[in-house]
């Protein structure tokens, strides 16, 4: 592996922005040179026992916590959480190859947290409006109504009242 690698990072909060290009060079002993938009930042990093990283960039001291899920990296820094999609060139190519699988038009409502399904208001075939309540999830003594993200028809219900669901579990499909 070369000591310098090119990465592409996209701030997930900015939907329409193109990915920025960053070049990372290892200088050894936790030191890196990162080039972004023509400016090279020298940074020194120290991985802390609990996995966070202390980073000193041009004198500025940052304690950084990472929340990683695949190529998505959440960076918690001075109280601000920013999520990025980070990939090197190889991964970008891999993604291009599998891109065809994403289906347009179909929207899956997923459980936003682990909890219990206390109500399902719709059944397969129902026509729903945008914002119409579909299911109610109870978690931590709060009931949360999940609404339809779009107008359409319910094509699939993959849960039932009383079910315990994990974070991200698909519940209802609207097409």
């Amino acid at each position, binding site marked *: 592996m070369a000591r310098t690698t090119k990465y592409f990072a996209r701030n997930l909060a900015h939907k329409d922005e193109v990915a920025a290009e960053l070049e*990372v060079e290892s200088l050894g002993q936790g030191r890196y040179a990162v080039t972004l938009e023509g400016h090279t930042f020298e940074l020194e990093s120290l991985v802390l026992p609990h996995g966070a990283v202390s980073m000193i960039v041009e004198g500025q001291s940052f304690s950084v916590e*990472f929340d990683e899920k695949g190529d998505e990296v959440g*960076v918690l*820094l001075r109280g601000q959480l920013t999520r990025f999609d980070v990939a090197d060139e190889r991964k970008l190519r891999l993604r291009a190859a599998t891109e065809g699988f994403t289906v347009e038009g179909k929207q899956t409502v997923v459980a936003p947290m682990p909890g219990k399904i206390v109500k399902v208001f719709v059944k397969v075939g129902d026509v729903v409006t945008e914002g119409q*309540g579909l299911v109610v999830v109870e978690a931590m003594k*709060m009931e949360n109504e999940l609404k339809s993200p779009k107008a359409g028809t319910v094509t699939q219900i993959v849960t039932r009242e009383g079910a315990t669901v994990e974070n991200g579990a698909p519940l209802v499909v609207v097409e």
Partner: protein
Amino acid sequence: MARIKKVLVANRGEIAIRVMRTCKELGLSTVAVYSEADRSALHTRFADEAYCVGPAASRESYLVADNILDAARKSGADAIHPGYGFLSENAKFVRACEKAGITFIGPPASAMDAMGEKTQARTNMIKAGVPVVPGNAAPFVDVDEAKAYAQKIGFPVMLKAAGGGGGKGMRRIDRMEDLDGAWRTARSEAMSAFGNDAVYMEKFLDQPHHVEIQVFGDTHGNVIHLNERECSAQRRNQKVVEETPSPILTPEMRAAMGEVAVKAAKAVGYVGAGTVEFLVDAKRNFYFLEMNTRLQVEHPVTEWVTGIDLVAWQLHVAQGGVLPMLEPIAPRGHAIEVRVYAEDPSTNFMPSPGTISYVRVPSGPGVRDDSAVYAGYRVPNFYDPMLSKLSVWAPTRMEAILKMRRALDEYVLTGITTNLRYLKQIVLHPEFVKGDYDTGFLPREHKTLLGEEDKALARVSMIAAAMRAHQRAEKQQATIATAQKPGGSSHSAWRSAGRRTGSWKKGA
């Protein structure tokens, strides 16, 4: 009354810890109860003794009076402190404790009866000459009755649980179309929180202030007030930030509200710690809202400015002691509390249970953290998502605000989503800083409070993200290098590593 020696705390999480701390200071033994989901909770480990009272769902554990009393008997506890929520305002439970010969640390059942059912309480207060918010006199029998009543008093209205407070089972309704949905969720929430799904309705006052008075009574007929708390910063009808003194109160208003609160408490023969909640309108008229017949979540701010340990007073009064002071006490300095929740403010405060990977709480001068979290703790998804009550004290309000900013900056709690940043946005918001914010403040300013992205930090974050990706790649590379060394690892590991190296080379 007999001297208390062992206290069972019929609650969980931070309030259980809070109560046990004072018990320990007073040399009392402590008994925890825990549900099956709370075996690893801090309160279970913090107590001298711990007994399991049932499965995760509170209706099958923390709300089952018999299971709590069984644990009390097994442990030989001579008193039960209910904390807040759960059985704390359940008069039946108070009577059951009495019958079992166990001291209930709280008001007598009769006072709870008089205040617990919210519509009855309103009637009692009107009788005592206390001003109340317009609303109906008894819970609704069905949704149609509710609809008719709403039609009568006009929108917006508040649908509220008759069985208890604390924002549970409470919904603001602006249009008739929303009443069905609100009726459904409010009742179901009320049932799960209080075991009682009765609801009633009040006229929604336009952006009032929520100001409450802490009262304290003893068994000798003395009742005093310990000043107010400003609790207008609410999201989903639940308090998020509290402070004392209230920035909108004059000494005259404090005295007047204090007097009414004491009158209300005396009218029901109140003993122990209680809170009389008022709504204050734009003209500074105040109306009785409800009385919480228990210790309040936000009690630490009162403790900061009075120097009183309210739990110690509760124990003192429960043993027949006379109130240690009988005159109102002037507040010293200023205190603010924020409630740190496991929730995501950007998705309508969706709870975010999960495993805390790391925590470092703020400390230093004037900072108090009441929490029950630890690194590696899995916040269960069965209970209230509050993680910590963080409170600060300083000589002046502005200094307290700046101290809270510092404390929030210092709070490290990772692995789950919290409202820490949102809380910081609240206390630094010009409206909060100015001090004249009403209950409409948080909903109205929601977008601003979510906070704009700090571009400079986002830029550094991106650099960090790229560095992290590179570090991971390096680590992977190092593993491969080890695997390739003679004697490093097995053949099959080497093979898959080789595959990976090939790809990397192409990519680089």
